[in-house]
């Protein structure tokens, strides 16, 4: 089949990123031609500041070398500016008459620096700060001249000024507004910033309007004069007053532009054959000048160029960081605080610290941090997710580590301080140095890329936060926003929430039907999405859904835990951890009969029989079933165990019978499938010997009844529970537990434990459903009981009797 022709105009970050995304999903679809006006291959424009400052070289910031284009059979024309699009015949022409035909055209013409229309703007020595040639001109001037003036006290201007100062120039920043970075900072934060920059040696002229640039005898600029009559010497003038989308080419081709090439949610212009991405674009009235939105756009545009037709770009939230070494500031969202908002502020000018979080309707809508910015990403997460923060309002400014994260502190600061040899991913033995090296050498931008290349965070996922922090710390300002909507996996554009909603709204009851309805990109998904879909369908239709064994991880498929040597371990359920000599003898005899190599107490007070060969499983289960045991589900994304102490039955301090409570809870909840493993504990008094405050659902007996706690985690990232409520009776404990589990089962993403889920959703969300509204609590609990009718049959007994016999037997044994 003849390949279609795709032409990209603009060899910058957004356009080439679109090609990268496209090559990933449809590498053979197009003959690709790229036109770039600059003489360089694709480079990372946002790193020009470190190049100017001497912290990186031009070579360091090249993203794709020339041989990348060759390897991907892309025809690259550098140094050629496209000046005409013939839309009727679908041909583009360059200045020098080169032409290329297209079936699809992708415009990524970026933006142009805004040049003030003042006398002298065209003089030698006046530059903008946009591309490598500007940086070269600035470096050249810094080696020969002394006085530099930067017009514009925004992000770009300050980075340029810092670079020139580090190159030895005497730099004055001229800004028209009363404070610096007025598009990102409020006045107090900006004053702190100004002080630090002044301490570094920069000079500032605020509320100053430039009148003209004055030529010297040589014809080069020699001074800047202001409208108020003042003037200062200047051998180099950098204009950094803003950018404007480069729409010249699009306009000349008759495409509709309005402060940017206007595109729809599929990044198509008014001519559907022509796509546009990046800074040249106006989407829903917004033109973005930061990198993260461009990457989101690239992904959607690639999806449509590949003719999958399901990507949708709905706009981006952005945050700002200044790439000036030694200055930490962060800003996102509505940092000034519009009407109807209120703000929580911490101001410590002497200590160089300022924090402001802007709230509206109990949700974070903006934040400005100066000095200590370690909580920036957390506030940004709260902002993106729209989390209700009323429960944590009083401690919001003190940061995430004050919320029960047992003093681990901020992950960014923590990973930054780690030595290179520190192990980040315990499952796969990946240390910090490996990850940092991979991020730098392979120019990784996303968590998925880091997972693919290093394996870190690709097993149990408990180090995901650390890896994300490492990515943020290593890539710096480039990694500012992840899209708020994350697709489930590479097989679909849809998020977990969208999938769950579609299942219930459309009444879909099988994996193939769902994949068909939601236009899955792969014929049968992958191990990530199939396992999730199987759970979601099971949760939505407990009585009707036919479980898909091939979409279960091996542990759940064969109801035992696979171990490193391919053998399995089985853990019989011992309700509430309360056993008897008879039970123990039965287990001991069975272990002897099957020559079990290791018998081990688990962390949840159960006995683990390790080292069992797969073909032995049905036999040992049959024996265990006959002795009265059911599966402990220690292998599943399921209710695992209820840990207890001896409570008032024996303990001098016990206030309630925690063991009996534990047994009742386990009888209620065993067998239930959950988004991730789920553990409970019951302590008989506030001494909390069963460690109930690091469990998914913890119960602590007090004199007046029972305290209920949720969202704890004893894993790598320890998190103490949030207090849910106090209840008086046993019946209430059971009902609240059932309701809480059902809310979690119906709302969390697959493989999301209760701790991150509660943080994402907010405690208020849970309380509204489980505590505040008795009706709703009963409805949730009822749905849980209903579901348990179908899940409380012992998988071991069935398999001991011959179900799925093929799983356990080789297909053939050849001699």
């Amino acid at each position, binding site marked *: 089949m003849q390949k279609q022709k795709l032409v990209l105009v603009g060899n910058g970050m957004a356009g080439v990123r679109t090609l990268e995304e496209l090559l990933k999903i449809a590498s053979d679809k197009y003959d690709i031609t790229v036109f770039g006006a600059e003489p360089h291959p694709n480079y990372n424009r946002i790193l020009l500041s470190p190049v100017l400052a001497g912290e990186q070289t031009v070579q360091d910031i090249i993203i794709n070398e020339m041989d990348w284009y060759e390897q991907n059979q892309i025809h690259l024309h550098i140094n050629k500016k496209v000046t005409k699009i013939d839309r009727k015949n679908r041909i583009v022409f360059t200045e020098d008459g080169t032409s290329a035909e297209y079936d699809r055209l992708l415009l990524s013409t970026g933006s142009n620096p805004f040049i003030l229309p003042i006398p002298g703007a065209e003089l030698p020595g006046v530059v903008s700060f946009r591309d490598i040639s500007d940086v070269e001109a600035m470096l050249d001037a810094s080696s020969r001249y002394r006085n530099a003036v930067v017009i514009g006290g925004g992000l770009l201007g300050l980075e340029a000024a810092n670079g020139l100062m580090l190159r030895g120039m005497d730099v004055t920043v001229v800004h028209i507004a009363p404070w610096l970075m007025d598009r990102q900072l409020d006045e107090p934060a900006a004053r702190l910033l100004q002080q630090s920059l002044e301490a570094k040696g920069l000079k500032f002229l605020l509320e100053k309007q430039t009148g003209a640039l004055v030529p010297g005898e040589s014809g080069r600029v020699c001074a800047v004069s202001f409208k108020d009559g003042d003037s200062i010497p200047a051998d180099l003038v950098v204009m950094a007053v803003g950018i404007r989308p480069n729409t010249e080419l699009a306009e000349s081709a008759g495409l509709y532009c309005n402060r940017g090439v206007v595109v729809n949610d599929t990044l198509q212009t008014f001519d559907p054959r022509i796509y546009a991405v990046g800074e040249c674009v106006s989407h829903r009235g917004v033109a973005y000048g930061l990198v993260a939105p461009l990457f989101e756009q690239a992904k959607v545009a690639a999806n449509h160029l590949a003719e999958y037709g399901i990507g949708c770009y709905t706009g981006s939230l952005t945050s700002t960081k200044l790439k000036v070494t030694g200055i930490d500031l962060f800003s996102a969202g509505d940092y000034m605080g519009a009407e109807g908002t209120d703000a929580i502020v911490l101001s410590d000018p002497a200590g160089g610290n300022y924090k402001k979080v802007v709230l509206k309707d109990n949700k974070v809508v903006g934040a400005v941090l100066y000095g200590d910015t370690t909580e920036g990403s957390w506030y940004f997460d709260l902002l993106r997710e729209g989390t209700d923060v009323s429960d944590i309002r009083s401690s919001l400014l003190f940061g995430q580590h004050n919320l029960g994260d047992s003093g681990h502190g901020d992950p960014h600061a923590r990973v930054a301080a780690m030595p290179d040899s520190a192990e980040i991913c315990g499952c796969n033995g990946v240390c910090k140095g490996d990850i940092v090296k991979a991020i730098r050498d392979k120019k990784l931008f996303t968590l998925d890329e880091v997972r693919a290349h290093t394996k870190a965070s690709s*097993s149990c996922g408990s180090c995901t936060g650390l890896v994300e922090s490492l990515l943020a710390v290593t890539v710096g300002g480039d990694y500012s926003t992840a899209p708020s909507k994350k697709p489930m996996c590479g097989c679909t554009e849809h998020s977990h929430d969208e999938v769950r909603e579609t299942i219930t709204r459309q009444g879909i009851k099988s994996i193939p039907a769902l994949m068909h309805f939601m236009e899955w990109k792969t014929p049968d998904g992958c191990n990530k999405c*199939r396992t999730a879909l199987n759970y979601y369908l099971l949760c939505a239709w407990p009585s009707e859904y036919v479980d898909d*064994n*091939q979409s*279960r991880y091996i542990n759940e498929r064969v109801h035992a835990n696979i171990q490193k040597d391919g053998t399995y371990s089985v853990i019989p359920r011992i309700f509430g951890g309360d056993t008897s000599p008879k039970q123990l003898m039965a287990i001991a005899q069975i272990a002897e009969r099957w020559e079990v190599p290791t018998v081990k107490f688990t962390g949840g007070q159960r006995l683990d029989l390790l080292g069992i060969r797969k073909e032995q499983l049905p036999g040992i289960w049959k024996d265990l079933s006959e002795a009265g045991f059911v599966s402990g589900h220690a292998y599943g994304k399921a209710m695992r165990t209820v840990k207890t102490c001896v409570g008032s039955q024996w303990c001098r301090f016990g206030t309630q019978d925690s063991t009996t409570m534990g047994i009742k809870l386990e009888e209620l909840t065993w067998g239930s499938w959950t988004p991730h493993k789920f553990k409970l504990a019951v302590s008989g008094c506030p001494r909390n010997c069963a460690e109930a405050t690091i469990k998914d659902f913890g119960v602590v007996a007090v004199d007046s009844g029972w305290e209920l706690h949720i969202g704890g985690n004893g894993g790598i990232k320890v998190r103490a529970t949030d207090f849910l409520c106090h209840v008086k009776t046993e019946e209430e404990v059971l009902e609240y537990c059932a309701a809480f589990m059902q809310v979690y089962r119906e709302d969390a993403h697959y493989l999301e434990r209760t701790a991150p889920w509660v943080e994402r959703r907010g405690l208020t969300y849970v309380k509204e459903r489980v505590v505040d509204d008795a009706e709703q609590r009963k409805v949730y609990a009822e749905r849980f009981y209903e579901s348990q009718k179908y899940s409380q049959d012992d998988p071991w007994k069935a398999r001991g009797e011959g179900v799925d016999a093929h799983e356990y037997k080789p*297909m*053939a*044994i*050849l*001699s």
Partner: protein
Amino acid sequence: MQTTNNQQNWVEVGRIEDIPLLGARLVKSPKGDIAVFRTQGDEIFALRDKCPHKGGPLSQGIVHGKKVACPLHDWKIHLDTGLAVAPDEGCAARFPVEVRDGLIYLSLEPDSGR
């Protein structure tokens, strides 16, 4: 056991329905364990039942597309080549396999990999 007079020594190991769709079965042979896979499109592949990473039993993994995810550390292995999905590197030996009249024939001479 049955052989044909092809260049390979083909051994009949079972019927195609013996393997669940998107699943795998184990064949024990004098030359070691071999995993036989069945894809959505009823294609049959055979690899040594050992992930090139840490020896995980590939027959216990989840089959998707023409790949299997190793149950131990989630490496993905291409069923048709035995190669690990990039950026991982490694290769599981591939065994020639044929389906005739719904019967699966396997050759015990691996043609690539370890």
